[in-house]
C-alpha cells in the first residue's frame, strides 16, 4: 500500500485561477520520489497542500491519504499532530527558516517537544545524536551556537536534523540544495540518501533541476503549469522520455559546451601579479583582531578575447578577486596591470570616474534583483552608459533619437525586445534582468567583463541561454570575460581556460578538457564529483542525448 496517495488534487486561488489541476501521484514507503518543474509549475504548492500549510485564501480539493489517514478531512489541530511527527519538512532557504536568536540545539529540542514529553537529559542526548547524525562535527560544543555561526550547508544540516528528529515516515524536501554551492549540494544529497537508508523513510524531493534528481530519485514526476506532464521510473523517464517537455528539461540540465573553437590568445590584457589581500576579522573590541588571508599570491593573465573561468567554493576569495579587478577593492601587495598600464596595487588609488580606462572593466553581478535600480525604467538604466560613452568618445551627449536608436541596439544585442524600455526591473524575470545588466555593461564598450556568479541565481534553462549570450558576445566583439562561479559545469561549458581557487590560492589551471580528464588536485576532483547527474546518457561531445521515444 502506498504511504501517501494524492488523488485529483486541485488548488485554486479565487475561482478561475487554478494553480494545480487535478493531479494524481503516490509515494511508496521508503522510496524517493522527485517532483520536477520550473518555478510556478505548482510543485511546491502540491506538497504544501499535503502538509496543510497553504495560505488560507487558497482552496484545496481532492483526496490526500497518508498512512491510511484522510488528511484532507483533518482539522488544523489534527494536521499539526501529523506535521513534524510523521511528515518532516526541509525547505529551500535555511537562512530564514531557523530562528536567528535561538541556539540550534534549542531549535531541535523544540521540534521534539512539540510532539513528545522527554526528560531534559534524554532530550539533550537525542539532539546530540541527531547533530552528529547529520554530520555536524563537535556537536556538544556547537549545541549552543546560534544559526549565524553556521554556514549555509551546515544550517541545512540542522534543518535536516529537525526534519528527521521524530523519525517521520515521510520527508518532504523542497529544493533543499538550490541555495547552496555545488560541493555543498553534493554533500547534502549524499547525507539525505544515507539518512533515508538508515531510517527507512520515504523522501519527496522537489527540484527544478532534473540532473540533481538523477542521483537521488527512484521515480520522477514532471510538472508544468499545474499539471503532471509525465511520471515514471527514473531509468525509463531519463532514457526514454515520452513528452517533448521532459526532453527539453533534460537537455537543459546539461550545458552544451560552447567554446568548441577556441580563439588563439596572444595579447595579454590584464596581468595579475602576486596579489594578496587580508581583512581584519571582526572580533570583540578587546580581543586582538587577527587578519584573515583572503587572497594569497595570486598571479594570472587574462588575454584579449579570452573567457577565463575562476572556480571555487564560497569563501575561497573569488569575489574579492573580482572586486579588485573591477576596482571596488585594492590589493595589499602585488599589482594588477591593465593594457600594460598599472591599474591597481598598493599606492595606486582606486580608479575614479576621471580615470581614462574606467569604462574598460565592467561587472555583471550575482543578484539580478539588486543590480538594477528598482526605481528606474530599463530605457533610463541603459541610457546612462550610452551617454557616458558618447561623452567619452565624441565629447557630447547623444540626441534623443540617437539615444533611442542606441538603446534599441543594445537591447537587441542581448536578445531582448525593445518594448522592455518602459518596464521597471520588478516587471522582468531574473533572466531578463541579467540581460539588462549585461546590456548596461556593453553600453560602456568595455574590454573586460567580470561576471561574478552571474548565472547562479537563475534556473538551469536561463543559465544556459545566458552562457550562450556571453559566448556570442565574445565572438562578436573580442571581449575578454572573467567568469567567476562555484559550478564547475557552467564554467566548463563557457570558458577557454579554468583557474581553480582554494582558500585564496590558485591550485590548478588548464583547459576544461585538462581539468575534467586529468585533474591534478584532490580539491579539483571534489569540485568535479559535485557535478550532479553524471550518470545520464551522454554522447562523446559531452552533450546529453536521450533516446527518441
Amino acid at each position, binding site marked *: 500500500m502506498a504511504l501517501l496517495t494524492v488523488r485529483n488534487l486541485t488548488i485554486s486561488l479565487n475561482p478561475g485561477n487554478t494553480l494545480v489541476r487535478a493531479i494524481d501521484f503516490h509515494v511508496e514507503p521508503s522510496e524517493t520520489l522527485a517532483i520536477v518543474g520550473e518555478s510556478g509549475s505548482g510543485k511546491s504548492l502540491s506538497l504544501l497542500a499535503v502538509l496543510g500549510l497553504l495560505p488560507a485564501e487558497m482552496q484545496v480539493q481532492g483526496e490526500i491519504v497518508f498512512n491510511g489517514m484522510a488528511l484532507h478531512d483533518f482539522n488544523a489541530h489534527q494536521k499539526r499532530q501529523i506535521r513534524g511527527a510523521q511528515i518532516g519538512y526541509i525547505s529551500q532557504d535555511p537562512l530564514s527558516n531557523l530562528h536567528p536568536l535561538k541556539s540550534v540545539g534549542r531549535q531541535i529540542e523544540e521540534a521534539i517537544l512539540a510532539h513528545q514529553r522527554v526528560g531534559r537529559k534524554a532530550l539533550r542526548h537525542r539532539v546530540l545524536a541527531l547533530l552528529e547524525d547529520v554530520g555536524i562535527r563537535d556537536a556538544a560544543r556547537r549545541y549552543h551556537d546560534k544559526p549565524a555561526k553556521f554556514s549555509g550547508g551546515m544550517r541545512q544540516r540542522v534543518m535536516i536534523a529537525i526534519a528527521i528528529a521524530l523519525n517521520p515516515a515521510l520527508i518532504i524536501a523542497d529544493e533543499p540544495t538550490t541555495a547552496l554551492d555545488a560541493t555543498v549540494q553534493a554533500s547534502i544529497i549524499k547525507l539525505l540518501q544515507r539518512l533515508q537508508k538508515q531510517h527507512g523513510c520515504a523522501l519527496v524531493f522537489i527540484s527544478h533541476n532534473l540532473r540533481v534528481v538523477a542521483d537521488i530519485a527512484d521515480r520522477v514526476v514532471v510538472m508544468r503549469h499545474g499539471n503532471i506532464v509525465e511520471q515514471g521510473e527514473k531509468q525509463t523517464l531519463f532514457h526514454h522520455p515520452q513528452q517533448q517537455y521532459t526532453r527539453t528539461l533534460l537537455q537543459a540540465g546539461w550545458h552544451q559546451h560552447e567554446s568548441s573553437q577556441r580563439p588563439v590568445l596572444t595579447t595579454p590584457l590584464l596581468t595579475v601579479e602576486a596579489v594578496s589581500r587580508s581583512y581584519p576579522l571582526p572580533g570583540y573590541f578587546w580581543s586582538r583582531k587577527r587578519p584573515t588571508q583572503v587572497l594569497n599570491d595570486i598571479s594570472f593573465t587574462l588575454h584579449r578575447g579570452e573567457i577565463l573561468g575562476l572556480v571555487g567554493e564560497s569563501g575561497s576569495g573569488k569575489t574579492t578577486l573580482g572586486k579588485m579587478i573591477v576596482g571596488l577593492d585594492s590589493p595589499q601587495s602585488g599589482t594588477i596591470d591593465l593594457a600594460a598600464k598599472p591599474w591597481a596595487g598598493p599606492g595606486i588609488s582606486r580608479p575614479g*570616474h576621471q*580615470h581614462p580606462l*574606467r*569604462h574598460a572593466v565592467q*561587472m555583471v553581478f550575482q543578484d539580478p*534583483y539588486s*543590480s538594477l535600480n528598482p526605481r528606474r*525604467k530599463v530605457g533610463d538604466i541603459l541610457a546612462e552608459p550610452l551617454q*557616458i560613452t558618447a561623452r567619452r568618445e565624441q565629447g557630447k551627449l547623444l540626441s534623443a533619437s540617437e539615444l533611442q536608436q542606441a538603446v534599441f541596439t543594445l537591447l537587441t544585442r542581448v536578445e531582448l525586445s525593445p518594448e522592455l524600455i518602459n518596464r521597471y526591473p520588478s516587471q522582468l524575470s531574473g533572466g531578463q534582468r541579467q540581460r539588462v545588466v549585461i546590456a548596461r555593461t556593453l553600453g560602456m564598450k568595455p574590454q573586460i567583463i567580470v561576471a561574478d556568479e552571474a548565472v547562479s541565481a537563475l534556473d538551469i534553462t536561463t543559465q544556459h541561454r545566458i552562457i550562450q549570450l556571453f559566448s556570442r558576445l565574445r565572438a562578436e566583439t573580442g571581449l575578454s570575460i572573467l567568469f567567476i562561479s562555484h559550478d564547475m559545469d557552467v564554467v566548463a561549458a563557457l570558458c577557454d581556460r579554468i583557474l581553480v581557487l582554494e582558500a585564496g590560492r590558485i591550485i590548478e589551471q588548464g583547459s576544461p578538457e585538462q581539468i575534467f580528464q586529468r585533474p591534478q588536485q584532490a580539491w579539483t576532483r571534489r569540485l568535479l564529483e559535485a557535478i550532479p547527474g553524471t550518470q545520464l546518457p551522454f554522447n562523446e561531445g559531452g552533450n546529453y542525448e536521450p533516446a527518441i521515444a
Partner: protein
Amino acid sequence: MSQQLLSELPELATSSSRIFWCRLWRDKSARHGLIIVSLITLAALSASLVAYLLGHGETEQFRDIALSDMGIPIGPTAAFPFGADDNGRDVLVRTLYGVRVSLLVAVPATTLAMLIGLFVGLIGGYQGGKIDAVCQQLINLVLSFPFVVTALSLLALNQGGENGPHVSPSLVVIFVITFFSWGYFARLSRGLVLDLRQQDFIHAAKLMGVPSWRILLRDVIPAVLPTIGVFWAIQLPANIVAEATLSFLGVGIPAPNASLGNMIADVQRSAMYQVQPWFLATPALTLFFIVLGFNYLSSGLRNVLDPHLEYRQ
C-alpha cells in the same frame, strides 16, 4: 533626454504619480488621513473668512454680549457657534487661527528638519569614515539635549530688551523644533544610505564612472525619499504637539494671538471650563484631530510606499 525617448513609445506608460494617488486613495487609513488633513487645511485657510463673516476678530473681546451677568462665558449661539472664552473672544475664530499657527509652525519646522537631516544623513552614510563619525557624534549631542529645558531657556533669552523679543517668537519656536527633530531624520536617512551603498546597482554606477553627486542625486535620494516622506508625516504631529506644549508653557506664540497650546493654557488658568466646557473642548479636540489625521496619513503612506512591497513584486 531619456524621458523624451520613453514618451515616444506606444507602451501604456501610465503616469506613476496617478498610480500613486490611486493606491493612496484605495488605502483605508490613507484615505481617512487625507480627508481629515484636507479639512484641517481648509479650516486654517478659512480663518480670516470666518472671522469676517462672524464679524469677530481673533483678539477682539465682546465682554458685554459674550459673557453672562456673572462673567461666565456663554455657550454656542448663532453669533458664537462654539461659544466664547472668559475674555469674551470667539472660540471658533480663535481655534481656526490656532490651527493656522500650528500648521505654519510645524510644517516649515518639520520640512526644514527633514532637509537638514537628509543632507547630514546622506553625507555621513555615503562618505563613511571620519565624516560619518563626526555626523554621528553631532546627532548624539543634539539628541541628548532636554527639549523643554533648552526651549525654555532659549525663548527666555530671546525676551531681552524693552522693545519686546529680539526675534519673532514664532521663528524661535520653528528653530527650536527643527533643532530637536533633524537628528531623527539624519539617523533614518543614514541607515537607509548605508544599506543602499551595498547594493550592486550603486557599485555598477561607480564602475561606469558616474560621479558621486550624480549617484546621490539619481540613485540614492529617490530611494530614500519615500521613507523619509513617511517619517515627515510621522514627525509632523509630534511637532504640532511640541508647538502646543511651548505655547502652553507660555513661551511659544505670545498672547493675545491664538494658538491651540495657549488657548488650552488659558482655559486651564481660569478654571472656567468647569462651568463652560466648550472653550476647552474646541481647541483640545481640534488638536486631537490634527494629530489623528496626520498619523492616519503617515501610516497610509507607509502602506503604499513600503519599499519592500515595491522591490520584489
